[in-house]
């Protein structure tokens, strides 16, 4: 909503300037986003009559014009305008005047002819119009010497409002904003003059009646018929106000409908009566698939829940949104049918949104227009058309009202105690009443500390006591409400072990050199191809977006790692090949039924480039699991073929917790998957579900004192078939070593010469210790037990 200040000040006084008004309105919730000054800099433009036009020697288009500016004297200017004629009254910018934007005029010479300033076109002084049309011919009500800056409001600032939906209902008009200003200052409102009702007796009417066949969508339909409409344009000042309000001036008829809409918020539409057929006009539901060409030349296909304006034969407009091209008013229109209506706000909002057609009319109807101004606006508009066009009479063709027209405004009760307890300020009911009165509410006492409040017709947004509390709060001023910290008990205790596990995992990952990523949970279906997931693979079972805007918003992720690989690929393309990222986030698992999807929180790692490998990632995961309490209880199981197809089949594992719970997986990324993400070298990743990880976490950490007796170290090297896992060797050693064997450390793995094909050598340090000093004999016995077990149970060949 754009508010030319001069128009506003016609209805209400404001003691300060535009900036102070903007600040005061914003403080009351009518947010002024900007104060524009389209005519800033314009000074000293006056009207002058051209008394003579004379040629200038040596030029075929420049002319010398003699000007008479009445009390401002006489002068000569040189002009090349195409429409110069003696007798015209034109804008004259004398030397010392300046144009919008600040260009200052001086006396100049053109081909020996003196030009004292210049005669101006419409656009040169900031009025709507084309430069090429030539000089602006001023209308008869402006005489030579008149100050055009004042008369045409050329330097008037414009307040640009950004209205919230609740204020949009009553502040989408100059009158609505003027009411807010009056409430701020306590000043009087100067309402637009009451129009006289149409009184012409037109027998030869083309339109016999008004018919509403969708009463739930149309509450009222007023049709006035205008005949003998004159041909004049709207006054220049009106045109300037329309242009400043963001509406292009057209002709007196259209300009009058727009002017009244901006003035009081009631949209109007004018039809060329020649094109209306069948002796009837009204509102009905569109037929499904019905097509109408709107004024902007677009074909619009309608649905049965759209409302149209129709004559006896066809739709002539999309109700409350835009008129039809078939009945458009033209410059030669002399007979007009003028419509003012009340439409159900939600219906207009729905149609406008669906058509993607938000117009000045739909923006107002969708918020609910003032029911008390529907008929008023029609009469006012008819009067303005007759006045501006230069003639015409009007008659009522029909005024139909249905049940959906808002009845008398509601009466709402307000308790002073309720206001005080919600605002936190000691206000009496009487004080609340005076704030409400200032906003146009009618207030009377309703017992002690209670008010009976009659809501004004233009405040359709106010229906409950809480709405009145808000009105009192903003009239009192939010800025005057004190800042008080509430007392009371603290909130309920809260722990989120899964979030805590995520924080702990993240801290370890950062210490290990991984940076935290935040990736989008939305992805394209192409992701599944990059992950080598065959059709029917469980990980393709994803929550799907029904209405994505782009292909990369098709589905919700089941895993975090693809997002991390994508980010690693992005970094690689930007010459950052060695990179390591982690993420803690939600993944989405379809519930399979009506229930909401599961949203487990995962922790994932991915690394690319130097050093990225199975063991490097595994070490971080081990560190994380140990920190979270999983000491010595985690197993690593080779995935079955096709279970994790995006991983290297020989370098990947399920991470398995106590009781066989799968906590997640780790692995090197399959070369095809890595390549699909733009990763050339090695890449490895891991992902764990923090839910079971956190659930398995023991209650807390217990301090274990270390043994003071000496530890005895014995080294051991064995040769085994290479497919015997080191994990199994460790299990055998621990079982055989019993309590004395405190630690098993693998320090060398060797395959190659001297070992034999298909075999490998593993070298360990075994640490023996007890709560007393062990004798050599005790250690020897334990160590021999380990050696025997390795030989007997695994067939290990002992090298030392």
């Amino acid at each position, binding site marked *: 909503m754009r508010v030319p200040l001069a128009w506003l000040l016609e209805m209400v006084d404001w003691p300060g300037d535009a900036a102070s008004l903007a600040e005061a309105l914003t403080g009351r919730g009518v947010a002024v986003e900007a104060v524009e000054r389209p005519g800033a800099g314009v000074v000293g433009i006056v009207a002058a009559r051209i008394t003579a036009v004379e040629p200038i020697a040596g030029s075929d288009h420049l002319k010398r014009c003699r000007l008479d500016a009445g009390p401002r004297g006489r002068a000569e200017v040189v002009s090349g305008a195409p429409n110069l004629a003696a007798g015209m009254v034109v804008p004259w910018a004398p030397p010392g005047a300046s144009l919008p934007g600040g260009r200052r005029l001086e006396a100049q010479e053109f081909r020996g002819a003196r030009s004292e300033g210049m005669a101006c076109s419409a656009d040169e002084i900031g009025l709507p119009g084309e430069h090429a049309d030539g000089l602006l011919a001023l209308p008869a009500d402006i005489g030579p010497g008149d100050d055009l800056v004042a008369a045409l409001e050329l330097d008037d600032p414009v307040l640009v409002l950004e209205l919230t*939906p*609740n204020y949009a209902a009553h502040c989408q008009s100059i009158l609505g904003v003027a009411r807010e200003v009056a409430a701020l200052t306590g000043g009087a409102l100067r309402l637009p003059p009451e129009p006289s009702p149409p009184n012409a007796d037109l027998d030869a009417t083309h339109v016999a009646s008004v018919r509403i066949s969708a009463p739930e969508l149309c509450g009222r339909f007023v049709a006035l018929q205008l005949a003998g409409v004159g041909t004049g344009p709207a006054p220049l000042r009106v045109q300037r106000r329309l242009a400043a309000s963001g509406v292009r001036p057209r002709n007196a008829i259209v300009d009058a409908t727009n002017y009244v809409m901006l003035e009081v918020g009631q949209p109007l539409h004018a039809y060329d009566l020649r094109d209306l057929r069948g002796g009837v006009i009204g509102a009905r539901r569109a037929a499904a698939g019905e097509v109408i060409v709107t004024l902007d030349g677009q074909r619009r296909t309608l649905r049965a829940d759209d409302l149209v304006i129709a004559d006896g034969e066809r739709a002539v407009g999309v109700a409350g949104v835009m008129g039809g091209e078939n009945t458009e008013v033209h410059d030669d229109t002399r007979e007009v049918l003028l419509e003012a209506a009340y439409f159900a706000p939600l219906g207009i909002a729905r149609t406008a949104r669906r058509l993607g057609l938000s117009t000045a009319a739909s923006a107002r109807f969708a918020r609910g227009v003032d029911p008390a101004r529907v008929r008023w606006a029609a009469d006012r508009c008819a009067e303005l058309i007759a006045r501006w066009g230069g003639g015409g009479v009007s008659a009522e063709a029909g005024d139909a009202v249905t049940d959906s027209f808002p009845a008398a405004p509601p009466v709402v009760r307000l308790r002073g105690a309720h206001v005080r307890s919600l605002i*936190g300020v000691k206000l009496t009911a009487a004080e609340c009443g005076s704030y409400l009165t200032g906003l146009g509410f009618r207030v009377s006492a309703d017992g002690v500390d209670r008010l009976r409040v009659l809501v004004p017709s233009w405040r359709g947004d106010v229906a*409950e006591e809480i*709405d009145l509390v808000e009105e009192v709060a903003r009239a009192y001023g*939010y800025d005057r409400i004190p800042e008080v910290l509430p007392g009371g008990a603290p909130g309920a205790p809260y722990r989120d072990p899964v979030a805590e596990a995520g924080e702990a995992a993240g801290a370890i990952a950062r210490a290990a*050199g991984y940076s935290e990523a935040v990736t989008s949970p939305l992805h394209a279906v192409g992701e599944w191809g990059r992950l080598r997931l065959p059709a029917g693979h469980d990980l393709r079972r994803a929550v799907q977006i029904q209405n994505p805007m782009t292909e990369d918003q098709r589905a919700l992720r089941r895993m975090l790692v693809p997002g991390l690989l994508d980010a690693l690929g992005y970094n690689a393309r930007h010459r950052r090949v060695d990179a390591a990222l982690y993420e803690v986030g939600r993944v989405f698992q379809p519930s399979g039924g009506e229930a*909401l999807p599961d949203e487990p929180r995962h922790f994932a790692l991915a690394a690319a480039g130097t050093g990225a490998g199975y063991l490097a990632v595994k070490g971080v995961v081990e560190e994380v699991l140990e920190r979270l309490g999983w000491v010595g209880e985690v197993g690593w199981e080779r995935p079955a073929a096709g279970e994790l197809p995006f991983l290297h089949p020989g370098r990947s594992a399920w991470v398995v917790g106590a009781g066989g719970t799968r906590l997640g997986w780790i692995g090197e990324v399959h070369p095809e998957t890595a390549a699909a993400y733009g990763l050339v070298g090695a890449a490895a990743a891991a992902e764990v579900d923090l839910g079971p990880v956190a659930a398995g976490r023991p209650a807390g950490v217990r301090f274990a004192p270390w043994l003071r007796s000496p530890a005895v170290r014995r080294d051991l090297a064995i040769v085994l078939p290479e497919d015997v896992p080191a994990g199994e060797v460790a299990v055998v050693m621990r079982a055989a070593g019993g309590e004395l064997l405190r630690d098993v450390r693998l320090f060398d793995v060797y395959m190659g010469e001297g070992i034999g094909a298909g075999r490998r050598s593993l070298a360990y340090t075994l640490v023996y210790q007890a709560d007393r000093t062990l004798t050599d004999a005790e250690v020897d016995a334990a160590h021999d037990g380990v050696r025997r077990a390795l030989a007997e149970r695994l067939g290990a060949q002992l090298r030392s």
Partner: protein
Amino acid sequence: MDPLAIDWAALKDQAESELQAASSLQGVEEARVRWLGRSGRIALALRDVGRLPAAERPAAGAQGNEVRAEVEALVSERLSRLEAEALHARLAAETIDITLPGQRPQVGHAHPLHQVWRDLVRIFGELGFAVADGPEVETDWLNFGALNIPEGHPTRDAQDSFYVADGQLLRTQTSPVQIRAMQALAPALPVRVVAPGRVYRRDTTDATHSAVFHQIEGLLVDRGIAMSHMKGVIAEFARRLYGPETKIRVRPSYFPFTEPSGEVDVTCVFCHGAGCRICKGTGWIEIMGCGMVHPVVLKNGGYDPEEVSGFAWGMGIDRVAQLRYGIDDLRHFLQNDLRFLEQF
């Protein structure tokens, strides 16, 4: 002089000059052996004491022992002196260029969004608000209906929300957690929670729009809660986030789930109210929306609006991070460019 007499003073002088002449630890050691060793000159001289007349022996012996102690002291003084010199020389030789770059450990960086997220949760935690949580795929009842956003309301437009099933969508705001938190606690009081989380809007991604972003929502419901308390909590929060000089301004606004509603501005953190490019010359920066919980929302949460009242607020975590770090393009947050991440 008695031919048998021992000239202890001369011996001492000689030992002293030899020790002074020794310029290395080895030289001192050799001198020590020569003088103090088992067959060193002082030992030999002490043996000679036995040949003295009995009457002279005690004095000569005492004198000899004295000289031996003095030479021993000389040796150790000389040793420590040379050790000190050697250490000094070694340290001097070990001098390095102290402006060489340090050997940096490879340490990961926390994402700026989560740094801000943790900060906000910490501050509200200090003010007595616990974290509450809700799903990102939400029912449209909790995302809209329960929040007093009826069918047909413009913010319900399918054009603005991602739907995953009939009646299920990606939440467009963290506000549904208000209802979940109330329903979980009702009728207990107070409800004092903050809900940070990810939200989604069906929006084209560019420098200032993102389909995926982050909000933090707060809610306090108790007996006798007023707008003054809302202003008090928000002002205290703003001071803890932006510094003790920060002031807030609350302007009336509109949200379906609060009434009265407001927009909160804080004094510009860059110019402290003087006006700058960031605050577009106003001296204020808009940081959040807030309001008194609408009676309908309280009822949907399981509370009687005649008995209790409350306030709620919501703010964009991305926006706080943008302001704090001067990030002008929202797309950086989800790009995970290490040139970006490693700055935080």
